[in-house]
Every structure is written in C-alpha cells, then in structure tokens.
C-alpha cells in the first residue's frame, strides 16, 4: 500500500538529516505514527507535522540520535513549507473540518 506524500517527505528528510538509514527512518516514523493511531498511508501534512513536533523528538532520543530537537524543528519546517496542501485538504478530518465550519 502506498504511503502518503507527507509520510514520504518526512521519511526522506529524516534520512537526510540523521544517520538513520532508509529502513530505520521509516520504521521510527511508523512507530511514532502508531503511537497516536495514524497510518503511513493516510496521514496528512498537518497531522505529520504535529507528530514530528510532539512525538518524534522522544522517539529519536530513544534511538540515540543527537540534536533531535533541532532535527525535528527542521523536519517540521520542511513539512510546513511543502506543497502538500491538496492531499491534506482531502483527509477525513480536513473534509469534516470544512463541513462544520461556519
């Protein structure tokens, strides 16, 4: 099953910014997603950003990655500045958020 663009971006950035290899960076992100009941195939950019800011620092620290706060900050910036808004706008949460907004 294909991963969401937000997950792919975060995984690629995490691999680039740390010594973690492809499998490790994706596995770390998947565990962080699982902790807050998200899936790599459906997580959107806003959800991914929040997970990077709130869950990932702890996960990276547990894996002995140094300077994890700074890495997560840069990851969050990369996600926020990405052009993934169209996929984010179609997640169930984003759709219902629009539907109930006055």
């Amino acid at each position, binding site marked *: 099953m294909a991963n969401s663009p937000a997950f792919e971006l975060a995984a690629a950035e995490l691999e680039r910014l740390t010594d973690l290899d492809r499998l490790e960076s994706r596995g770390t992100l998947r565990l962080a997603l699982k902790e807050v009941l998200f899936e790599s195939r459906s997580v959107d950019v806003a*959800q991914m950003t929040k997970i990077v800011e709130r869950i990932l620092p702890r996960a990276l620290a547990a894996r002995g990655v140094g300077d994890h706060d700074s890495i997560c900050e840069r990851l969050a910036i990369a996600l926020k500045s990405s052009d993934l808004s169209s996929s984010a706008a179609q997640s169930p*949460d984003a*759709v*219902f958020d629009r*539907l*109930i907004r006055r």
Partner: protein
Amino acid sequence: MLALFGIGCFFVVGLLVGVRLLALWCRTRQLPELLAAVAMLGIGPLGTCVLGTGYLLFHDTSLMPLFHAAGLAIQGVGFSAIACFAWRVFRPNDRWAVALAAIISLVLLVDGFGMFVVLTPAGEFALRNHVSMSLKILAIGWGAFESLLYWRVSNRRAAIGFADPLVSASFLMWGIGLASGTLGLAVVYATIAWIGPGAVLSPPSQLFISCFGVVAAAAFYLGFLPPRAYRRRFGARAPAAGG
C-alpha cells in the same frame, strides 16, 4: 400522520444543511462538499417534495407515476452521493470502495432514470424495486459504518490531543444520522415488502420511521450546524493538525 413528523424534521434539517453545504461547495469547489449537499437535498427536501407533490396533487392521475419516478430518481441520486462520499472521504485509496460506489451509483441511476422509460405504477413493487431498495440501504449503511469506524479512532486521537474533538464528534453525528436513516429505510422496505406498496403503514411502523427521522435530523443538525452551546462543550478547537 405520525411518520410525517419525523420526515418533516428531516426535511427541514436536510434543507438547512443541504443549502449550507451547497454554498460551501460554491466557495471551495471540493467534491466531498458537493456529494454531501446532493445527498442531504436529494434524499430530504427535493426527493420528498416531488414525491409529496405527486401524492397530494396528482393522486389517481396519469401524472402520478411520473412524479413517483422523478421523486425516487432524485432520491436515488442522493443515495449514490452518500456511497461516493464514503469512498471519496474514508476510502480514497481502496479499489473495492471505488467499485462499490460505482456499482451502487450506476444501478441506482439506471434504475432511477429508467423509471421514466418504463413507468412503474405507484402500487406495484417489482424485482427492480427490491434491488433499488437494497442498494439504497447498502449505500446509506456503508456510509454510516465508515463514519462510525473512523469516529472510534478519531475519538481516541482527540483524547490525546491529536484530533479536534468537535470534528471527531461530527463523524459520530454523520454516522448516527446515516445509521438512523438505514434503520428507517429498512423498516419502510420491510413494511412495503410485507403489506405491499400504497397500503397505509401500521402505527408501530409509523412510530419507528418518525423516531428514526427525528434522530437523523438531530444528528445532522448537531453535526453540521452545531449550535454555540454544543460547540462550547468541546472547548477550544485544537490548533491546525488536520483535525
């Protein structure tokens, strides 16, 4: 008369919510808004208006089957929209969901517009009516199931600060509204299949339909037109986190 109360509640809320969603679609031009608006207006006010006009003004005339067919066709479009909404919002990447939504929509649209070609007398309940009713129940039941399933996860995310509680509650309300509609439609179907179309529904059936109509109307109202006091129950909205 008893059943009319529930249908009336659903009619009013369907009109309010449907028009609001249609106005929202005019601004966003997003498919989910359009599908939800078509579903609310088609099954509720538009379909009911056309069916009601036929029964009230053209009963026992040659125009009656035409109004009957038009009302059911409009409602069929509404049920198709619910199936497409379930696919587009909850299962956008699943092929089986695309196939299911396509089959439901295609059969209901062919059946709905086919009724103009071969007009079925209002008092007749043919095989195609069974197929059509079953697919309508499947469409609305599927929509309810997907929304309630998503609400279970969303509610747990909201508890740990990873989803907006109000948005999470709207999944529950959409699910309850559709589940109530499913049960109401199932009662109508079972009653029509049992006593035949055109016959007067028994008071218990009318009471059931009325209750389901009221519950659906209340759920859609809270879900899509949440009053200020209801919003306050969920506290301040979570910062942008995709919900």
